[in-house]
């Protein structure tokens, strides 16, 4: 038993060091966002002036609003398309083009962004030459590109959630007289709802975080937030970017905290229900 204990101590140390590695850069971003000096890493006193600077930077504000718009639109569309794809792959065993669909909906997960970006740009240009649409590049093209690669993530999440779901639930509904479409909306969708929420959040994050694909398929006057940040940090560190990073981290942390609280609450309610029903809680 002694050597088992020895290993048990080794693992938490690895975990702690690994988590420190993940969080130290983020902490340093936050700390130096309150630094007065422009030199970012030379501490010269506490100040919030870079936050003021940030909010006066119209370019960043515009880019942030644009990114938010694209992210919301593409996340919603990606959830719809990804859910259909995931449902088809999980529930329809045999149809022509299944392998093609399975391959195409998993490939964007591992495709280097730079290839996806290049191919979509060349496609849009060729399409415009042939049909006159999309008539220049901007919000529309970026949104389509983001839908395409984030629907793959949604499809994978929904597919695995459906694979875990007991198919006899759907069969029971059909047995009780519900038509396939009714079964989908009354039974399947409510059960995979958590997967849809996490899929939406993931698609939103992927969209708002994307630099490479947006750089390819965006046009003049439609610079997303990552594009603006990239052009700024390419020239070196700048304190208002630290401030921006701190705000983003704050929003994410708050969101996660709320989600965790909601989760805890739901768990507690389930635990109470289980006790009321006199069931074992495990």
């Amino acid at each position, binding site marked *: *038993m*002694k*050597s*088992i204990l020895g290993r048990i101590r080794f693992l938490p140390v690895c975990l702690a060091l690994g988590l420190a590695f993940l969080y130290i850069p983020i902490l340093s971003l936050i700390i130096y966002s309150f630094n007065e000096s422009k030199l970012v890493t030379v501490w010269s006193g506490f100040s919030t002036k870079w936050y003021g600077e940030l909010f006066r930077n119209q370019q960043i504000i515009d880019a942030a609003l644009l990114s938010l718009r694209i992210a919301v639109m593409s996340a919603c569309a990606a959830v719809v398309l990804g859910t259909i794809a995931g449902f088809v792959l999980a529930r329809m065993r045999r149809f022509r083009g299944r392998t093609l669909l399975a391959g195409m909906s998993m490939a964007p997960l591992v495709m280097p962004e730079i290839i996806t970006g290049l191919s979509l740009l060349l496609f849009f240009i060729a399409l415009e030459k042939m049909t006159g649409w999309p008539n220049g590049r901007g919000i529309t093209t970026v949104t389509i590109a983001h839908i395409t690669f984030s629907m793959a993530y949604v499809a994978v999440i929904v597919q695995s959630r459906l694979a875990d779901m007991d198919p006899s639930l759907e069969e029971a509904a059909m047995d009780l007289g519900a038509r396939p479409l009714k079964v989908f909306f009354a039974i399947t969708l409510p059960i995979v709802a958590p997967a849809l929420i996490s899929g939406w959040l993931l698609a939103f994050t992927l969209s708002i975080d994307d630099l490479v694909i947006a750089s390819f398929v965006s046009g003049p006057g439609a610079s997303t937030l990552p594009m603006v940040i990239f052009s700024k940090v390419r020239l070196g560190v700048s304190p208002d970017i630290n401030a921006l990073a701190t705000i983003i981290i704050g929003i994410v942390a708050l969101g996660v905290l709320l989600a965790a609280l909601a989760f805890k609450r739901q768990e507690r309610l389930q635990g109470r229900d289980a006790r009321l029903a006199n069931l074992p809680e495990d």
Partner: protein
Amino acid sequence: MADSTTGRPPAASNEPGQAREPWNDPEAVPYIQLENLSKRFGNFTAVDNISLDIYKSELFCLLGGSGCGKSTLLRMLAGFEAASEGRILLDGVDMADIPPYERPVNMMFQSYALFPHMTVQGNIAFGLKQEGMPRPEIDRRVSDMLELVKLGDYAKRKPHQLSGGQRQRVALARALVKRPKLLLLDEPLGALDKKLRENTQFELMTLQEELDITFVVVTHDQEEAMTLSSRIGVMDQGRIVQVGSPNEIYEHPSSRLVANFIGSVNLFEGNVVEDEADHVRIQSAEAGCMLYIDHGVNQIVEGSRVSVAVRPEKIKISRDSPEQEDNVTRGVIEEVAYMGSLSIYRIRLSSGVMVQATQPNLDRDTRQFTWEDEVYLSWNPYSALVLTT
């Protein structure tokens, strides 16, 4: 003796001798000794101050419902759980500081825990390889073992290519091949279907006799425990409530709990009206008659309330009043369940109490009794048992 008056049959003469029952031999040295063993998880006491001796070549069953602590006790023997108090001696050696991988004990897991990435052969050879045994010796031992469990043709298969029964035999072979001093089996037949379970029970007993290895089996299935074991330890809430041979446990349960757990039983409450050395009389309103039992209870005072246990197969059903004064009552048959070899009758007594009685189906097509029949129920004085706890 009472034999002449009550018609008690003479004691069975074909019972195994002292050599087969080392627990009745004061000279015998126990092979495994549990001394005041306890295991606590936080506030919860899984194993509560158990002392138990198990002898060499025994097939000892730990029997109990879920959460009674039987599996924890087994895991303590294997070395996966350390004792909170007390100690375990195996062949005279204290096991406290010996890790599972150095104990001369092997376990057959309930889930079988076969290594999914290894073949049948690889699984069985695993333990021998850990000992650093030379290759030819390993091969010989593994093929002998495969032969013994009749899996010679399946050596190269992976676990997922085997049926449930075959997997069970691989798990058994893997644990046996190391020739442990003690083999632990956690619900060994639990995952098999009924027919297979019956066959495997006998295979397991034959194997155990052939190899002469001490087995400790954990099970919740009383039938399995009755068939397999030399002795049974009935567990409840972390304690062992009774230890004895299957016959003792069934015919002489020490408490209502044990009587209820093993087989079915009818319990009648009543007041002791007469307690002598060789018999007791109990007046029971529930039974609707005077109960006469041919053994004294002596630690109880007259007038106190006790329970009388009568097994269903010991109750005789008849249309006419039997020629005895005690242990006779009347009722109406409410339910009949035909089980093939026997039928189970549920009879409502005039007190409202339901009694269960079984009768063998001696004829192929005629049944003696049916629904709504008014019948007499009777039993012998030596068939019932007084339970005070």
